[in-house]
């Protein structure tokens, strides 16, 4: 991919509004003919989110009324109060998710950038062999590794701690690929010049190449954050006590009160849990999409 995912729109010709040809008028009408159904479709597509929000603002008894109630009546904040301050508060799980995501992002971006740089720009014996080993494992699905990771973490005493979620996420093959791909495309001439000037390898990396890589590093960071924030399968296997729950586990636990789902609490917790990802996505949308089209990592 060479550019942003949005095709640059050709600048509209500066035509005075009063003198539009029939053809231009038709083009404008066609634009709206397409836009209206697409907007309706998009709104229908997002109805589940509307329902999530609406239910989070209702009394639990109003969640499943016939006919359905889209606008809460009466409007209540109880579910949010309960979910944030009540007995099963999701705040500790939220904090756990923040810690896990933050350490993973920092660790992964740092180690993947250094390794990716070395694989791309430094020459050393054994490099290509190590890289081949990386390549071979890149297709291994994470789920396959859950059984041995479970056993190891249990032996190491890290089972049911946040470390079990953090450690594997700090050192990744896919992150290394992403960074290597970027550094391969960077000119070697800078490094040669700097070496002649007596700079050491760390200075060359830190002062010359790292600053160029910041957009890719942040893209990797965003992907890792979203992935870490949403991950359900890993904590499902490696975490058991509620104190170590991350948000996805905590959300799912609202189902198990006497077997009945508390609809408004679950939806209020869901709303709270998707806010950080939504903010990251809306603010950094372009970079996010670019990172995604680059890697295909979810």
């Amino acid at each position, binding site marked *: 991919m060479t550019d942003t995912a949005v095709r640059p729109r050709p600048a509209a010709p500066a035509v005075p509004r009063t003198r539009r040809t029939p053809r231009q008028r038709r083009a404008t009408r066609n634009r709206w003919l397409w836009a209206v159904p697409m907007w309706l479709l998009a709104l229908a597509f997002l109805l589940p989110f509307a329902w999530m929000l609406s239910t989070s603002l209702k009394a639990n008894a109003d969640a499943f009324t016939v006919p359905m109630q889209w606008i809460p009546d009466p409007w209540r904040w109880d579910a949010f109060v309960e979910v944030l301050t009540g007995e099963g508060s999701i705040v500790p799980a939220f904090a756990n998710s923040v810690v896990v995501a933050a350490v993973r992002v920092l660790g992964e971006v740092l180690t993947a950038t250094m390794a990716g740089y*070395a694989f791309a720009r430094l020459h050393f014996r054994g490099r290509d062999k190590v890289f081949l080993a990386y390549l071979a494992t890149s297709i291994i699905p994470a789920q396959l590794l859950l059984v041995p990771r479970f056993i190891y973490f249990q032996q190491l005493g890290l089972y049911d701690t946040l470390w079990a979620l953090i450690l594997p996420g700090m050192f990744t093959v896919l992150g290394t690929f992403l960074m290597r791909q970027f550094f391969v495309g960077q000119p070697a001439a800078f490094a040669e010049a700097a070496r002649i000037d007596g700079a050491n390898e760390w200075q060359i990396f830190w002062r010359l190449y790292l600053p160029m890589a910041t957009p890719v590093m942040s893209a990797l960071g965003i992907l890792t954050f979203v992935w870490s924030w949403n991950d359900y399968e890993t904590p499902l296997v490696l975490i058991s006590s509620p104190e170590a729950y991350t948000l996805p586990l905590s959300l799912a636990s609202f189902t198990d009160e006497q077997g009945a789902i508390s609809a408004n609490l679950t939806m209020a917790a869901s709303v709270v849990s998707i806010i950080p990802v939504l903010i990251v996505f809306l603010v950094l949308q372009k970079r996010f999409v670019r990172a995604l089209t680059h890697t295909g990592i979810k």
Partner: protein
Amino acid sequence: MAVSVAPAAPAPSAPASQAGPRARAGWLFILPNLVGVTLFTFVPLLSVVVLAFTDWNLVSGLGGIEFIGVDNFVHVVQDPTFWGSVGRTIIYAGLSVPLTVASGLALSLALDRDIPGRGALRAMFFMPYIVSTVAVGMTWLMLMNPSAGVVNQFLAMLGLADLPGWFASSYWALPALIIIAIWSGLGYAAVIYLSALQDAPTDLYEAAEVDGAGPWRRFRTITWPSLLPTTVFLLVTLFIGTSQGFGLVALLTSGGPGDSTTVLPYYMYQTGFQFYRFGYAAAIGLVTFVGVLLLTLAMWRAQRGRALHD
């Protein structure tokens, strides 16, 4: 454009003379990552292979590991639940992946024009993809409530008398999962297609239009071939993801009702983490992985063959 996960080949080797500080620097740079990847990826990977040849459960402790040769694999082949899971995985992935890709393609073609709010539209369709499985799953679970859920109320409004039981029915649970998977993934497919459409050969369109080719013909002869690598990429990545994930199933159905939604990865999860039969779970995981890998390779080759033809 580079919609590929892995670069094709390692960069050419350096001249042999470059030992010394640069060589040491190289190792130091990869060391943190390499140590971590070794501990948390390479070693577990080898362990899975070893475990698959053992009979071991959590209760018997590390000393209770017993090597049983290929027994696990023999058992897998004779296990009716395994084959049932294979069938359900094929239905689940085989329906949800092509439908996700096809609807993503249609959406990207609809959005690939100058319409007001195009960026916002793209973001709206993409949104389900970035939201956690659990939030999405819990919402759909309630929307698909058989008696008072929004979906069935809507279907009843359309005049349907025999309403689907969704997650309460062994017939409808798998289709319900497929609907959720398509809803979650189609925005992703559309975004990938949209970025591929930027590279479509625009000059050819103009020439084809002058030659009087209609929209369908232009799509079939120009757009579709130029999107073929993207299509294969999406099919492969989504297929791998769909055939390995068990989150949605674990959250919503626990494989049921009955075993109607016990797909392969969930069967592995259940064997390993509910029955603690680690050796057998490892064998199921390996067999699944190799099967998916072979299918994926076949897809790549089919695409390469066709690309050479064109």
